[in-house]
């Protein structure tokens, strides 16, 4: 066990020395690998976060029925009777226009502005809970409700979440395509670096083979090198993303103010960072393995 650890340590030190042997090209490689990783991974994390927030926000879909200005209590009683008989409506709540105004003043801090208005511009409204959470069914229900007498509009919050949702889906496709391209590019870069390493070490490899080194033994330093290069690039990418996300978070907070969604869409968690590093290390390892298999044999 101790000697195994010592062997691993020797291999890691050897890989670091290899990186140090040509510091400029190593650095360049690492920067290229890291920036290549940032784009799809950053996109992926943004999407994942937006989806998580959508999941929170869209948990309880609502439809707001805005009533025509002249609606009286008789009309409302009639409307409530119809709503009770409508399939797909789980429940509803009347929000009188005075309450709506008070809410708005409190929530948005618009008291001064609203004070200056001649009257209350808001209509009475019903807030409905649809029985189904399915966006298509909610849309159909809203369509039906729009046709009821004294209803001037039926708005549902799901509309924008739905639009975001389909945006997220398109985004996920783009990110996936980018990610695949990135993986291939990373493999190619590592493959080529290792090829150069094998060529430089040709003489040494030939001697070691004569002294009884197995192909696995000959390959191992290159695998460690590939993985180490991946780890360092992954750490670089993590740092770049963390900085980028911190900057974005500031911008978005200013934009959204207190309407923020109960969480920022730009979070980079410890687990995300570790995954990036692990992912990069695996790709580096595989690229090195492919290259060493091809060139160390020759």
């Amino acid at each position: 066990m101790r000697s195994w650890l010592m062997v691993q340590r020797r291999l890691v030190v050897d890989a670091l020395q290899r990186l140090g042997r040509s510091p400029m090209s190593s650095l360049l490689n690492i920067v290229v690998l890291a920036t290549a990783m940032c784009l799809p991974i950053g996109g992926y994390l943004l999407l994942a976060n937006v989806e998580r927030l959508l999941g929170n926000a869209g948990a309880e879909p609502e439809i707001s029925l805005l009533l025509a200005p002249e609606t009286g209590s008789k009309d409302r009683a009639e409307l409530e009777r119809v709503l009770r008989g409508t399939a797909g409506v789980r429940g509803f709540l009347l929000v009188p226009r005075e309450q709506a105004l008070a809410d708005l003043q409190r929530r948005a801090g618009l008291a001064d502005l609203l004070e200056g208005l001649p009257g209350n511009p808001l209509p009475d409204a019903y807030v409905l809970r649809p029985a189904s959470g399915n966006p298509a069914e909610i849309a159909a229900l809203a369509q039906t409700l729009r046709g009821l007498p004294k209803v001037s509009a039926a708005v549902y919050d799901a509309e924008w979440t739905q639009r975001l949702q389909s945006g997220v889906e398109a985004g996920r496709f783009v990110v996936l395509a980018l990610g695949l391209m990135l993986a291939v590019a990373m493999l190619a870069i590592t493959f080529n670096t290792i090829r150069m390493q094998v060529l430089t070490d040709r003489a040494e490899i030939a001697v070691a083979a004569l002294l009884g080194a197995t192909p696995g033994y000959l390959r191992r330093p290159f695998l460690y090198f590939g993985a180490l290069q991946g780890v360092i690039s992954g750490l670089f990418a993590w740092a770049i993303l963390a900085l980028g996300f911190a900057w974005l978070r500031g911008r978005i907070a200013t934009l959204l103010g207190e309407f923020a969604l109960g969480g920022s869409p730009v979070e980079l968690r410890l687990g995300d960072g570790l995954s990036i590093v692990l992912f990069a290390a695996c790709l580096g390892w595989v690229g090195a393995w492919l290259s060493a298999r091809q060139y160390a044999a020759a």
Partner: protein
Amino acid sequence: MIVFSEVSKRYPGGHEALRGVSFALAAGELVYLTGHSGAGKSTVLKLIAGIERPSSGTVLVNQQNVGNLRPRAIPFLRRKLGLILPEARLLFDRSVLANVLLPLQIAGYEPLEAQRRARAALDKVGLQGRERALPMTLSGGEQQRVAIARAVVARPSILLADEPTANLDEAQASAIMEIFRSFNQVGVSLLVATHDLHLAERFPARRLVLEAGRLAP
């Protein structure tokens, strides 16, 4: 230890380097392999080490048929042999000690045990105190002794040497042969390819003479 029966070797170019070669090397024996340039001496050693494969006939090393070995078995064959071949050069970017440590690292020895053995091997070839030196700073004879230390450090029972005294003056060549003799005296088998007949006369032993790929009677 080593048995050749009716071994022929034809290189891809079509040249037949060995034709129907048969001989045996017993345990603890010292044998010279002589002959003119191009006679096939190096080819014999390469067949034993699994660097080349025979075109026909069988090469047995410790009862193993080397010609039939799977590629993955070849490294383990080589670990039982000590090779002093021009192909197995010293690594000039690392110290004498690091060069001698290489076979032990490959075989997976404990680092401390490896250090101990490498120093002992350098001791045996008279290079104690030169562990930190770079091979470049050593004379040809000293470099050859580093190569011998590296070949014997894992204690193989067979040593194969290809022109071990080439480019050495008589005194240095004799020093190398003395070292070989000391290993032979403790039971190591040696097959030494050389065209230095002078040397073979000074250190008499059995001689196999190759003539254009055939063993002379």
